[in-house]
C-alpha cells in the first residue's frame, strides 16, 4: 500500500466518521458519562462486616454479644443457604462450625467467594474463636480451613468505583465497534466501495485505513478515561491491553460491517455480538456470578486481564496467554471480515 493511498483513505474515513454526528455524540457522551459515573460511585467499602454462620449447636450468647458491634452475624439454616448468601455477596464470609464438646474440638470451615489474604483469614478465625468463647465460656481446640466459592480472585475488597474502571474502559472500546461496523456497512450500502476499488486502492488498503480510524476512535477515549480516573498507575500494561482490546473491537466491527446487508442489519448483528461480549464484564462487578463457560467469550481475555492489572496490580507477563487468545480471536475475525468483504465486492 502506498502512503498517499492510505493517508487519503484515512483522512476520508475520519472525516466521514466525525461527520456522523450520532457516533461523535455517542463517543463523547460515553466518555463523559463513564467519567461521571466513576466519580459518583462509592470510593470506600462498607466497614461493617457481614458474616453468616451455620452451627450445630445453639449460639444465642454469641449473637447477643455482637449486637451494636461492627460485625453483623446471620444464622443460616443449612450449609446450602450459607453458601448461597456467600455467593450472592450478601456476606463477606460464611462459617460452618462443628462443635464437639466431648472431643474438646471445633472444626471451622470458612467460605468466601475469592481467596482471602492471610491477615483477613486470621481475622475471620479470630472472630470465630471469640464467638465460640463467648457462647461456651471456655476455649476449645479450633481447626479451620478456607473454601472458595465461585471464581478465585485475590480476594481483597475493591471499592466499586475502582472495580468499575476496567469495565467502563472495556465498554468505551466495545461501543465503538458499532461505529466501525457502520463505516464498513455504509461503504457497502452506498456502494462507494466500488468507486474506491477502481482507483489504486485495494480492499486491504480500505480495511487498514478503517482499522486506523477505529484505533483512533477506540483507543484515545479509553486511554483518556483511564488517565482521568486512575492516573498513570500500571499505564504501560494497561495501554498494551487497551491496544489489543481495540484491535479486537475493530476486528469485530469489521465482521459485523461485512455481515450486514445494510446499516439496520449491522446494528442488529452488532447488538447481538455486543450483548454476548459484554457478559465477561458482569463477572468483574459480581465475581462468581458467571460460571467458567464465560471463558469461551473472547472479551473475557480482555476485560479480566484489565481488571487484574488495574485492581490487583498483576504483572502483564502472567497475562500473556490471555493476550494471545485475544490476538488470535482478532486475527480470525479480521480474516473472516476480509473474506466476506471480498466476496461481497468482487463476487456480487
Amino acid at each position: 500500500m502506498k502512503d498517499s493511498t492510505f493517508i487519503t483513505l484515512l483522512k476520508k474515513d475520519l472525516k466521514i466518521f466525525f461527520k456522523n454526528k450520532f457516533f461523535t455524540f455517542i463517543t463523547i457522551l460515553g466518555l463523559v458519562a463513564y467519567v461521571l459515573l466513576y466519580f459518583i460511585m462509592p470510593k470506600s467499602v462498607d466497614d461493617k462486616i457481614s458474616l453468616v454462620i451455620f452451627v450445630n449447636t445453639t449460639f444465642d450468647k454469641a449473637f447477643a454479644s455482637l449486637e451494636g458491634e461492627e460485625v453483623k452475624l446471620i444464622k443460616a439454616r443449612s450449609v446450602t443457604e450459607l453458601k448461597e448468601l456467600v455467593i450472592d455477596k450478601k456476606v463477606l464470609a460464611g462459617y460452618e462450625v462443628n462443635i464437639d464438646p466431648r472431643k474438646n474440638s471445633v472444626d471451622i470451615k470458612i467460605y468466601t467467594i475469592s481467596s482471602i489474604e492471610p491477615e483477613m483469614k486470621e481475622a475471620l478465625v479470630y472472630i470465630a474463636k471469640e464467638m465460640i468463647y463467648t457462647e461456651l465460656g471456655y476455649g476449645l481446640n479450633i481447626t479451620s480451613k478456607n473454601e472458595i466459592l465461585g471464581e478465585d480472585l485475590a480476594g481483597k475488597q475493591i471499592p466499586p468505583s475502582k472495580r468499575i474502571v476496567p469495565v467502563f474502559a472495556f465498554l468505551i472500546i466495545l461501543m465503538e465497534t458499532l461505529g466501525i461496523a457502520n463505516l464498513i456497512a455504509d461503504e457497502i450500502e452506498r456502494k462507494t466501495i466500488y468507486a474506491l476499488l477502481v482507483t489504486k486502492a485495494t480492499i486491504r488498503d480500505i480495511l487498514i485505513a478503517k482499522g486506523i480510524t477505529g484505533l483512533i476512535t477506540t483507543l484515545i477515549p479509553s486511554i483518556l478515561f483511564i488517565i482521568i480516573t486512575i492516573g498513570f498507575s500500571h499505564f504501560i500494561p494497561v495501554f498494551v491491553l487497551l491496544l489489543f482490546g481495540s484491535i479486537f473491537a475493530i476486528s469485530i466491527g469489521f465482521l459485523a460491517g461485512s455481515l450486514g446487508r445494510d446499516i439496520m442489519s449491522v446494528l442488529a448483528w452488532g447488538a447481538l455480538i455486543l450483548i454476548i461480549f459484554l457478559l465477561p464484564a458482569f463477572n468483574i462487578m459480581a465475581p462468581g456470578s458467571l460460571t467458567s463457560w464465560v471463558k469461551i467469550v473472547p472479551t473475557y481475555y480482555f476485560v479480566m486481564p484489565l481488571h487484574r492489572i488495574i485492581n490487583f496490580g498483576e504483572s502483564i507477563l502472567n497475562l500473556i496467554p490471555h493476550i494471545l487468545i485475544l490476538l488470535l480471536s482478532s486475527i480470525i475475525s479480521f480474516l473472516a471480515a476480509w473474506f466476506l468483504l471480498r466476496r461481497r465486492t468482487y463476487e456480487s
Partner: protein
Amino acid sequence: MEKAIVGENLTFKYGNITAVDHINIEAEKGEIVGFLGPNGAGKTTTFKILIGLLKPLEGNAYILGMDIRKETKKIQSRIGVSFEYTNLYEELTAEENLKIFAELFGISDFDPKALLKKVGLEGKEKNIVGTFSKGMKQRVMIARALVNNPEVLFLDEPTSGLDPVSANEIREIIKEEKRKGVTIFLTTHDMYEADKLSDRVAFINQGKIVAFDTPMNLKQKFGKRKVKVELMKDSKIEEVEVELDKSQAPDKIYEIFKSEKIVTIHSEEATLEDIFIKLTGRGLG
C-alpha cells in the same frame, strides 16, 4: 486502429446462472461503443469484468493493451468509471468528493473547480452532495470519472432516471470527451441514447451478444425501410405501408401518388429497439 477495449470469450456465472456467456466485445481508440440490453441481460456484469471488479470465469479482457487479470490497478489508473447507482460520499462537498479520488490517483495539481465547471456545477464546489438533485449528483459522478483524465471511460447508464435536459447535458459531456479522443464504453438500455452517441452498438441478451455493428449497418441489415401514407377514401382516412426494399415498391408508390388522395406521407426507418425485438423477441424496457 489500435483497440482500447478487447473482451474475448468472457464468461461469468452467479452460482448456476450464466450471466455472461462467452461474449466478444471491442472498442477502437476514440470510439463510443454502446452496450444495449434489457435489465438482467448481463450488461453490468460485463461492465464489472471490464473495469476489473469481477474476474471472468473464462476468457480475458484487455484494456489499452493490458491484461485486466494481471494489470488491474495499472488499468484502473488510466480509466474512468461512472456507475449505474449514485455512489458518492453524500455528507461531503462536491469538491471533497473529487479531491479524495484525485489523491487516490496520485494527482497533485488537481483543480476541482475546473472539473465541476466542465460538468455544469460551477459555484457548487462547497455544497454538500446530499443536498444535490439526481441530475447534479450524476454530474458529480461523471466529474469523478474524469478526475484522472482517463483514456477510456466506462459509463453505466449515465442518464438513467434523469430529466431530458439533464440527460442531454450529460450526453454533451460524453460527446466532448469523444472529441478529445477518449474511448467510451456506454452501457444503456436507452436505444435513443445509444443511437445518438454510439459509433457501434452491441446488443446483449441473456448473456450473449446477438449483434455488434454501427447503428446504420444494423438498421440496413435487420430493419425495414418503409413509407407510411394516409389516404382519404370514402371520407375516411386509411393508412397504407409500402416496404421500400420490395420489388413492387416503385409501382405501388406511383399508384398512390396517382390517386391524388394523399393526406400525409412519411418515410420510416427501423429503430434499434425494433431491431433488438426482431433479434431477441423481447423489448429493451
